[in-house]
């Protein structure tokens, strides 16, 4: 039996994938390669990991307001995470997904957890995200 966490839907959608969990905020500008899905911020603990197709859990974004453009480009190229889970409302990520819906009809699911719930996430665990923001964790 897996565990269930009920998150708040920011942008609705279904997704499945393995969790890739960051303990530190990430700027997608200078931190995410939209052509590969690799995390390229060499100061970030996930540097070198490929988030494409995985469920990326980042507490928040940091820094640059260009994060949105990079995530939108990653979605357009099919190199975005399958979904993103955050520990709070992140407008930069939400906007990328809203605009991807407006432009291409391909929103990326985005779910917000409380910091305490977020802290329970572990990399490598398989997750299913439901339309209502429920996370079903395997194991």
């Amino acid at each position, binding site marked *: 039996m897996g565990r269930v966490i009920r998150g708040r839907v920011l942008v609705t959608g279904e997704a499945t994938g393995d969790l890739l969990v960051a303990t530190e905020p990430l700027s997608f500008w200078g931190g995410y390669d939209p052509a590969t899905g690799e995390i390229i911020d060499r100061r970030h603990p996930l540097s070198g990991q490929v988030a494409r197709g995985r469920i990326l859990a980042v507490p928040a974004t*940091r820094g640059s*307001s*260009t994060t*949105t*453009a990079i995530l939108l480009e990653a979605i357009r190229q099919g190199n975005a995470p399958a979904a993103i889970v955050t520990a709070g409302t992140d*407008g930069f990520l939400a906007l*990328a997904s809203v*605009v991807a819906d*407006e432009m291409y009809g391909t929103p990326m699911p985005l779910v917000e957890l409380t910091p305490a719930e977020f802290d329970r996430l572990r990399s490598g665990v398989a997750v299913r995200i439901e339309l209502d923001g429920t996370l079903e964790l395997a194991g």
Partner: protein
Amino acid sequence: MTLAFSERDRGLLEGELGPACAMAMRILVRMARIQGASSFLDVTGAHIDSALYMGEATLEYAERLADLGATVVVPTTSNVAGVDPHGWERWAVPPQWAAKAQRQMDAYRRMGCAPTWTCAPYQTERRPGFGEQVAWGESSAIVFANSVLGARTERYPDLLDICAAVTGRVPAVGLHLDENRAGQVRVVLRDVPPEVQAHESFYPVFGHWVGGRVGGRIPVISGLAVAPNEDQLKSMGAAMASSGAVALFHLVGVTPEAPTEVEAFHGRVPEEEIVADLDSLRAARRDLHTALGQRLDLVVLGSPHFSLTEFRRLVPMLERRHAHAAVRFLVTCGRGVKLLAREAGLLEPLDRFGGEVTVDTCILTTPMLGEDVRVIMTNSAKYAYYAPGLLGTTVAFGSLEDCVASAEAGRVLRKEGPWAE
């Protein structure tokens, strides 16, 4: 929370003011709901980061809006773009990139954005006043507008800033509202000698340290021995907005919403107190310096964009010196500041030194550096923070004087000065 619409908001959304306004308002409404806004408010200006070419998606978005007839309804400046149309050919910019980046610039020009193309719009005549509600993109400009000018803007991401500019409306959330502008973290300097605080690198280093510790919260800094000038506030804020997501800081006795510490905190108790001592600042300075050895390919100044005052500081250092043949020396600034610098006679000395100027963009936002540029030197914490990830270079971080001396010598030279251990 229920979201209230004015009559005009409804008209915008329902397409009465055209399809571009409807598209922009649809995006704004979804964002307002995500952010929990209860209404929208008017803005009197905007600064557009979206003009930056970041691939097909940003170009398609710009041309979709422009083709739908989008026009800005408030005075709007434009941030750095994806190319310097005045001389990208002298650098490694691929012609195809240049063409697309210029198409994207043209789209925003068609929408009525002023062609300022600078990340430091507060150096132009469009400098918002105290309390003015604006919608700004560009993290370093946002933190400057909120903190130094006392204007009010949320952190507008690319793509949303233009929606605000074409509708004149934004969700009433975050830093637009008085109650969200109170300080949260008390930042104290302990035993940091005045000569360190007076050193040019202090502000970028301190900003880098603060941003890494406060994340997106609002720091209140007091007890600085030396009052900073505008360029120092610019560089400190940009550093905080790189290592953290700081959109507003209060500097007690300096910034307009912080005449006293109590007022900066709106009378509330700080969530946390953090202490910067000399050791922590030395570590932050080391963190910005990723170069090994003395190899040097490029010296670059101007992130955020170089000001006229900074040109005036730089030029006397260049006298009777010349950059080494193996090192390029580059200043990045807005085209407006470049014109002023030329009129002030500040470009000829730079030219004689062997220096170059790039306008409208910067090394992080256009692919101007070739593969052979492996080590760059700068006095900017923002360049130092982003270059390793975005460009794959290492960075020598030094003072302006270190940068000039290194360009002349053809190798990295850094004076430890008051930072010496």
